[in-house]
């Protein structure tokens, strides 16, 4: 999902102005830990990672894993017990006011100002962040337009759907042009269309150079949106890499599902074929699946490495038994398999 440079407006051309004076990662976390008062264990047990500028960084983990605590510390709402957290060059514990200037937050729950209209929500937010009046008015109109909210700028938040509320909260967070945008479980409770719209906007933000940190317990979302994914559970960082690399590192989950039309004579018995396939180097296990919907046999072959590279060898073995390979399906592991391997349980 590398986005093509868009460069359609002068606004995007100047995106890195505020960041150019600073170097280093967008987010830097070193040995970050949190123990809540009266708790017997750490909610966050010494986590370290970096988020590069301009990347979409996904935080994947079950509820209570420590995602929200991490985001809470990074957005200055939770004080860390130990460790250091820096956002866009600003230490969040030492200078929370400075950090709030450079970060934007889209929370999980609707926290829009219900006494204000949609447009006023955007404009007052910008005024809290010191955006000059003329600019905040223009920006509000532009952003409302981009988020499909321009037709009802004077409506109150209570009159909108969940998806629209979500859009308003992202639109509001963008009003002070944050260097790093935090999205906490953004697609929870959204319908599929609203979810796609959200993904679309995150991809646009990324291509415009904004760093996005997103928490989710949705595998698809993490895999689709993120440049890199951190898997967190019980307050510990279990893995951190690109979705592709995380999956590549998996030993389990690579399969070749074959449908075989058996031949006559000795080839009419699947046992010999299964044994012969198992003898192929790189095949770890072969099993025959019961599938009454398929004429012939269904055989699942677990392999080490790329399943596609085994197709020719399997076809040869099948031919040697007088049968023919009528169907092949490649099974690649996904993030869910990675998660199960790391934590020993499914996420949902």
């Amino acid at each position, binding site marked *: 999902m590398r986005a093509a440079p868009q460069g359609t407006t002068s606004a995007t051309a100047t995106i890195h102005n505020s960041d150019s004076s600073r170097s280093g990662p967008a987010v830097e976390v070193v040995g970050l830990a949190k123990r809540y008062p009266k708790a017997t264990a750490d909610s966050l047990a010494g986590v370290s990672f970096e988020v590069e500028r301009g990347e979409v960084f996904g935080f994947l983990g079950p509820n209570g894993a420590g995602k929200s605590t991490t985001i809470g510390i990074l957005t200055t709402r939770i004080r860390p017990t130990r460790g250091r957290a820096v956002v866009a060059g600003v230490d969040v514990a030492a200078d929370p006011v400075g950090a709030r*200037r450079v970060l934007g937050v889209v929370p999980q729950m609707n926290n829009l100002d219900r006494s204000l209209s949609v447009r006023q929500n955007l404009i007052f937010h910008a005024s809290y962040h010191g955006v000059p009046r003329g600019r905040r008015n223009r920006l509000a109109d532009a952003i409302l337009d981009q988020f499909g909210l321009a037709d009802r700028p004077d409506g109150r938040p209570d009159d909108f759907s969940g998806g629209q509320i979500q859009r308003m909260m992202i639109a*509001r967070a963008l009003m002070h042009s944050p260097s790093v945008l935090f999205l906490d479980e953004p697609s929870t409770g959204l319908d599929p269309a609203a979810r796609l719209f959200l993904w679309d*906007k995150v991809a646009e933000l990324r291509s415009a150079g904004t760093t996005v940190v997103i928490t989710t317990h949705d595998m698809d979302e993490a895999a689709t949106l993120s440049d890199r994914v951190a898997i967190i559970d019980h307050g510990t960082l279990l893995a951190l890499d690109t979705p592709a690399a995380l999956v590549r590192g998996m030993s389990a989950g690579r399969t070749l599902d074959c449908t075989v039309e058996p031949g006559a004579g000795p080839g009419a018995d699947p046992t010999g074929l299964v044994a012969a396939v198992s003898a192929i180097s790189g095949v770890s296990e072969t099993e025959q699946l019961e599938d009454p919907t398929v004429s012939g046999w269904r055989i699942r072959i677990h392999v080490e490495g790329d399943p596609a590279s085994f197709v020719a060898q399997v076809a040869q073995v099948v031919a040697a038994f007088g049968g023919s390979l009528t169907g092949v399906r490649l099974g690649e592991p996904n993030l869910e398999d990675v998660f199960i391997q790391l934590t020993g349980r499914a996420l949902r």
Partner: protein
Amino acid sequence: MTIADDPTASTVATAPLGHLPHWGPWRTGLAILRRDLFVTGREFPIFLAQVILQPLFLLFVFGKVLTALGYTRPGYQLVLFPGLVALAAVLTGLQSTALPLVIEFSYSNEIEDRLLAPLPIGAVALEKVVFGAMRAFVAAAVMFPIGVWVLGAVPWQASTFGAVLAMVVLGSLLGSAMGLILGTYVPPNRINVTFALVLTPLIFTGCSQYPWPSLRDLRWFQVVCTLNPMTYISEGLRGLMVPHVPHIPVGVCFMVGVAYLAVLMVVGMIGFNRRALG
């Protein structure tokens, strides 16, 4: 993910602010105050009705009706009026700060956007107190025209105008600081019962309907009234507006009021920080 590759997709305007004029936290605080004033200004008549009604009836029944029927001595309204100004200031301050805080911290989460604004957390609390006090000040100020209307005249001395103003501001801030404490320490599901348990004693032990020195013969109640911060505002205003009525010395009222304000603010700030920060 093909959406991002679509060159026709609209671009989110995330151009940075470039050389942002350096707004200090003070100016962010003012922007938040402006939001509160904007929302209140839009429903100003409702706000006025809200704050006027109770003191209006108290003034009318105790100052006018009971006097006209002969149940109170003539001149009681002179004792009552400064006390009702104090009551309006303290109560409106308390309610204007406590209720929004309870709602914004629990049901609406609205306060989050302000807690994420570039100013210290304590400044958000301070803004709440200042705004609550502004509402309280308006409520106390409108007591004067209402007093003229209901009673025909209000006790008034040009020489103490500035001191009356200062005492009303102090009362407004005291009430608002109490509201900060209620709004941050009381869980939302208990706010109703807490209001009932706090407001009634506060209203009736604050010397707004009787001068404190006159309680000599009811010593235990006099001691109870000493604990109520509102007592010092009622008595202070009495001393400034009707000095011939026995009262606690105005200087003492100022000092105790300011001391109470300091203590209440410290306690309230601690409560606010606990609610705002994990």
